[in-house]
């Protein structure tokens, strides 16, 4: 039996992240990145937001959203570097940078969400 690479698993993470980020990030980015800063809508009170974030389900969803989106980005960015800049020969560095970043980001995200409560 031939060896198995982890490429398929990375691809699964990429895909899941693609769905998660497409479903949830636009709304969040629209609200917090554009609508509140520009004053189109008034931001929710701290108390309300805290309550929402403290809900275990929200924390779970946010964790997966952060982690998967990071892996999504890492994977896609890796291939953009390969193909766009034609630096496939540097793949070890690129991999370390991309997925390493995603792992660090995910751990940070988990820590953040954990320590609020």
């Amino acid at each position, binding site marked *: *039996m*031939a*060896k*198995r*690479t982890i*490429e*398929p*698993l990375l*691809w*699964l993470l990429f*895909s899941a992240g693609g769905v998660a980020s497409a479903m949830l990030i636009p709304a969040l980015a629209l609200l917090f990145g554009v609508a509140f800063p520009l004053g189109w809508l008034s931001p929710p009170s701290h108390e309300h937001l805290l309550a929402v974030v403290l809900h275990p389900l929200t924390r779970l969803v946010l964790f997966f959203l952060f982690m998967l989106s990071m892996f999504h980005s890492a994977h*896609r960015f890796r*291939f953009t570097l*390969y*193909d766009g800049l*034609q630096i*496939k020969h540097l793949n070890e560095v690129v991999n370390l940078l991309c997925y390493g970043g995603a792992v660090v980001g995910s751990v940070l995200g988990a820590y953040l969400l954990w320590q609020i409560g």
Partner: protein
Amino acid sequence: MNDRITMQVARYLPEGDAELSYQEYEVPYPREWVVLDGLNYIKDRLDGSLSYRWSCRMGICGSCGMTVNGEPKLTCATFLADYAPGPVRIEPLQNFPVIRDLVVDTGDFMRKLTSVKPWLIREEEKPLSEGEHLQTPAELDQYKQYSMCINCMLCCAACPVYGLDSEFVGPAAIALAQRYNLDGRDQGSKLRLDVLSDHEGIWGCTFVGECSKVCPENVDPAGAIQRYKLTAAMDSLKSFLMPWRGS
């Protein structure tokens, strides 16, 4: 006279040339002439030394693929009049080494095609005396689309990854592997998975999607690859989570 169109044809002679050059020819272009008719006119009447491949002139043998005004096309299914008033530029297919004029080396393509084991694999042959394998029209439809590939290589010429990454198996070969995987009579998907999933086979594809856009037979190799990735990934996940169930 404006009943002629200028064809700028790429020329390359390995004996002398270091680079492609372009030669211009004026050819007639009646409504029913395809680009290939223009090339044949050049070869027969103007310049016998032009080299290119063709055979069926009905879009089925897959030999006449070239780059027409930057797009990969079957020259026997692309009408000259659509490019009026011209000029129309004819170059060899991209992403393949050029042997001569409009002729490219297809060796890489053929090797990759063979590597995915594109034939029916059975654990046990059914004896002829037992008749046919039953296959309902719906079962046939599962793989039919992927069996329509004429090996014209337009998809590979359109795919940047095929040009950038020499390891990438390419859209046509993967679609063909998928054709057999989805055929109910076949039992070889595991074997093909080993070939495809364990190296650059499919993971190099970043879903540029151009392959499906240029395919003259609507094979949709891009779709085949994504579907295949999903199957391969699920398969990996299973053997990752349940290693004891591995084959």
